[in-house]
């Protein structure tokens, strides 16, 4: 079998596996549903997810250890992940091939030649990783300068080095001692400067461009919801994801860029590719030419996926191991082995010191700049409601890779990608929006945390969510608190009975309770008692349409009998108002003023019982802007949200 056939089978396998994982991320026990499918495995295999969270949190969470496999493979074999495994890479390769297959050899060779701009992906990688490394840097710089002994020691050491630098004859050693002194001074100086300041902060943003989170997110949130229909039911119908247009735009842009240059994303943008390039720079096995036989026919360059110039000095780090050169070479010159290429090879693009520093410093500086908005501090946005089990905001932003797995698996479709409400850092992180979806956040559901590959949403047991068993003393997990908007609520503002919210409140005892009130109804004129016949009141005044007032919610009081509780209207007809009973017989006399009252149950929220599930908000019949809305107050995940004692 040809090697590229093997490669194509591998790519197809992983591509289909990826699609399968996306498709089965639907709660259920059928084979085509979630059951136990390891739907995040490809994300875990992505070492950029592991490295990013490791830098941001100092831990490598559970399944992310799989990334090591990719790392080891890359060190030995080169970028086998890019060419053989990555489903996003397979998509690019396929689209690029489709777009270019009819082009002339010269055009294809031109499209596949190496371009210096391919080093941009390094800039992106370094920028994103340094943004995640703020806390790591803070740890490096935290030398407890309060301790005067440490400061004195450092000062003495650098002084000694400084003297040595001046004394030492050899230019080489003089240079290095000078560098050492400058490093120590810089370290101490930065340590002082950053101590207790806002100069360093960590935020994981690799997910914006990391190919696997990007692909998962795009398919989960912009493709499957479109395909979801009668023929292919991927999930509960009618999934909506506000703001997914930006996700789709990014996806289609990078896909369509293959029409200009094949594997555009892989060559210029992909930060994972850049990481694997660095790891695979000195791979044991690599592509290369054998010493004799090359006629410079260009067959290899024409089909090169990595744009690594196989016909001349091969840029081995750019090579994605598509093996097209090996397959296409008519003279059997190309080989994959331990020997360096006979025509010469070099590792691949290198950033200049200046480019490297610029990317690093801007990455480190960007996060503190973003944090000045106060989004994780005093200015936290109460509209940002995170899924149950989500970490506090600062730690959440250290882990979330915006892969959209939680949004996809959420059975009620209430988890959505954030736009700017969680700040620029929070773009495409999960937020709950109860206007959309089939219900609020189901009390008995813990799916999102089980799928989160980085534990930005912790995988909580059901007992923890419900606050029972060993979690009984902490109470249930609250994601927010419902607030009644009395200006919009039907009973509160418009004298209409409703309390759908109370009825749907799922906690027991209910967090929404009501207080009863009999409010006088607005009529066009006074009602006066003309005569009383048993339980019927004949009256003068405007007509009372039975379909409105004889519904069981309307009651009557008489001005002359203030002590008698309102009596329910049983019916209204030509015979006047029929009452359920008539306690007014004794006291009322003709001419007495009749007041029609509506019995209202006014909703209140008990914040100690409310878990913020948003079912009330979802069900509220005031559909535009709900009359009861959840806000992140009292959410258990963050101390700053605390509302009650």
């Amino acid at each position, binding site marked *: 079998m040809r090697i590229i056939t093997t490669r194509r089978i591998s790519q197809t396998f992983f591509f289909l596996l990826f699609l399968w994982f996306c498709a089965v991320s639907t709660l259920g026990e059928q084979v085509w549903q979630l059951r136990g499918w390891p739907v995040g495995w490809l994300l875990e295999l992505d070492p950029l997810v592991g490295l990013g969270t490791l830098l941001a949190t100092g831990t490598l969470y*559970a399944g992310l250890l799989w990334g*090591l496999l990719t790392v*080891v493979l890359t060190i030995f074999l080169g970028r086998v992940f890019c060419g053989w495994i990555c489903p996003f890479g397979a998509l690019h390769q396929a689209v690029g091939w489709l777009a270019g297959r009819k082009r002339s050899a010269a055009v294809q060779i031109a499209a596949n030649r190496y371009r210096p701009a391919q080093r941009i992906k390094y800039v992106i990688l370094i920028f994103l990783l340094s943004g995640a490394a703020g806390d790591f840097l803070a740890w490096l710089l935290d030398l407890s300068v309060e301790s005067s002994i440490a400061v004195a020691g450092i000062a003495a050491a650098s002084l000694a080095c400084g003297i040595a630098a001046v004394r030492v004859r050899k230019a080489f050693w003089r240079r290095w001692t000078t560098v050492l002194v400058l490093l120590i001074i810089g370290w101490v100086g930065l340590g002082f400067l950053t101590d*207790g300041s806002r100069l360093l902060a960590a935020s994981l943003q690799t997910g914006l461009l990391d190919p696997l989170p990007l692909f998962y997110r795009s398919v989960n949130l912009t493709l499957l919801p479109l395909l979801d229909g009668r023929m292919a039911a991927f999930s509960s119908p009618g999934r909506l994801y506000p703001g997914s247009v930006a996700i789709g735009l990014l996806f289609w842009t990078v896909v369509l860029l293959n029409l200009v240059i094949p594997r555009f994303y892989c060559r210029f943008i992909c930060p994972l590719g850049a990481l694997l390039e660095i790891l695979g720079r000195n791979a*044991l096995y690599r592509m290369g030419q054998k010493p004799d036989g090359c006629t410079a026919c260009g067959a290899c360059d024409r089909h090169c996926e990595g744009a690594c110039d196989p016909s001349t000095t091969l840029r081995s780090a750019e090579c994605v191991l598509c093996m097209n050169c090996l397959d296409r070479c008519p003279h059997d010159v190309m080989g994959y082995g331990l020997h360096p290429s006979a025509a010469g090879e070099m590792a691949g693009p290198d950033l200049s010191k200046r480019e490297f520093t610029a990317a690093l410093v801007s990455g480190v500086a960007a996060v503190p700049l973003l944090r000045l908005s106060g989004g994780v501090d005093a200015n936290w946005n109460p509209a940002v409601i995170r899924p149950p089990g989500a970490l506090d905001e600062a730690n959440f932003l250290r882990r979330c890779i915006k892969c959209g797995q939680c949004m996809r698996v959420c059975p009620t479709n209430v988890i959505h990608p954030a736009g700017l409400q969680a700040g620029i850092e929070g773009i495409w992180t999960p937020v709950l929006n109860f206007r959309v979806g089939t219900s609020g956040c189901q009390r008995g559901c813990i799916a999102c945390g089980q799928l989160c590959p980085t534990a930005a949403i*912790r995988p909580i047991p059901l007992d923890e969510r419900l606050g029972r068993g060993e979690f009984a003393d902490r109470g249930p997990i609250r994601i927010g608190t419902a607030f009644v908007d009395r200006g919009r609520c039907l009973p509160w503002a418009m004298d209409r009975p409703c309390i759908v919210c109370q009825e749907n409140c799922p906690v027991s005892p209910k967090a929404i309770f009501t207080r009863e009130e009999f409010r006088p109804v607005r009529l066009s004129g006074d009602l006066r008692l003309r005569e009383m016949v048993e339980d019927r009141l004949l009256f003068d005044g405007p007509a009372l349409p039975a379909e409105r007032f004889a519904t069981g919610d309307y009651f009557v009081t008489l001005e002359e009998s203030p002590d008698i509780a309102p009596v329910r209207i049983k019916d209204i007809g030509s015979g006047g108002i029929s009452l359920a009973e008539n306690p007014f017989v004794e006291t009322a006399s003709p001419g007495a003023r009749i007041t029609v009252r509506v019995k209202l149950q006014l909703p209140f929220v008990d914040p100690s019982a409310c878990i913020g599930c948003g079912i009330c908000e979802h069900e509220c019949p005031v559909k535009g802007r709900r009359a009861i809305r959840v806000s992140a107050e009292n959410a258990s995940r*963050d101390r700053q949200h605390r509302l009650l*004692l």
Partner: protein
Amino acid sequence: MSETAMDRREFIRRCTRAGVCVAAAGSLGVAFYDSRAPAAIPGPTAALTLPDYSVGPLPGRICIARGVDRKRLVRQAFAALGGMQAFVNPGERVLLKVNAAFASPPGLGATTHPDLVKAVVRLCLEAGAKKVTVTDNPINDPASCFALSGIDAAARQAGADVIVPRQSLFQRFSLTGGRLVRDWPVLAAPLLQADRIIGLAPVKDHHRSGASMTLKNWYGLLGGRRNIFHQDVHTLIAELAVMIRPTVVVLDGTQSMITNGPTGGSLSDLKPTGTLIVSTDPVAADAAGAALLGKQAQDLPFIARAEKAGAGTTDYRALNLKEIKAI
């Protein structure tokens, strides 16, 4: 042949490098591997303990001094209790916890009066204190509060340092047996750098707690969103009374804010009540001070709760009570 030899050397070099890389990546991965998800709310648990600043097991002493001039009143009241040297030993560091809650001029009585601050700082220095520090975590902007209340200038003139609170001065603290003060930020740095604490509080009306006096003054040592404790203010004040065991407190009732407290804002909110209380027992001081607001100790639930919590006694007359008239 030479080419093959070089290849072999090159091969060994590459193998070594690959091996080292794999070992490094592997050990990093394994070293930082974390099979468990992070805790719900991370962060260090409160390990801070606060010392007891009181003067020891002697029975409580209290002096109620009548007069109008704060400087004389406080000097003579301390003199009646054995002088400042009975409370501050030479070489000790003293922290004065003032009430600087509001950015309000001293004449309006919403904050500890600068004359009182100045007098107490001098008394401490005369008693041989090595260092006197003045602090509070105000409600309004801290710098403005210290400046406009006149406390900053008065303290510095008299030779004390003023600590304006910053984030880094707070530490999380849990009160043993406390229900409210749990894992809560406390203005720890000045507390830990002091051997003695003297509370200086004005007498003020307070709509929620009934009165703001020496016990309520400790509220200003809390950080964070402390006003959520207003939901159960009496319990909180009682917990504060257990949390801070001061050396001595000074309750300034020369003028008392009778209405619109605790901010006041008008001279008409003040009433001359001509009393200054110095006490080793803040519960007794507040119990005695309640009368200045026309109230009784039992009208103020936090006093009874603080007493029940063992922070002092309501029956200030049972203490070693001195009543003087300042000359």
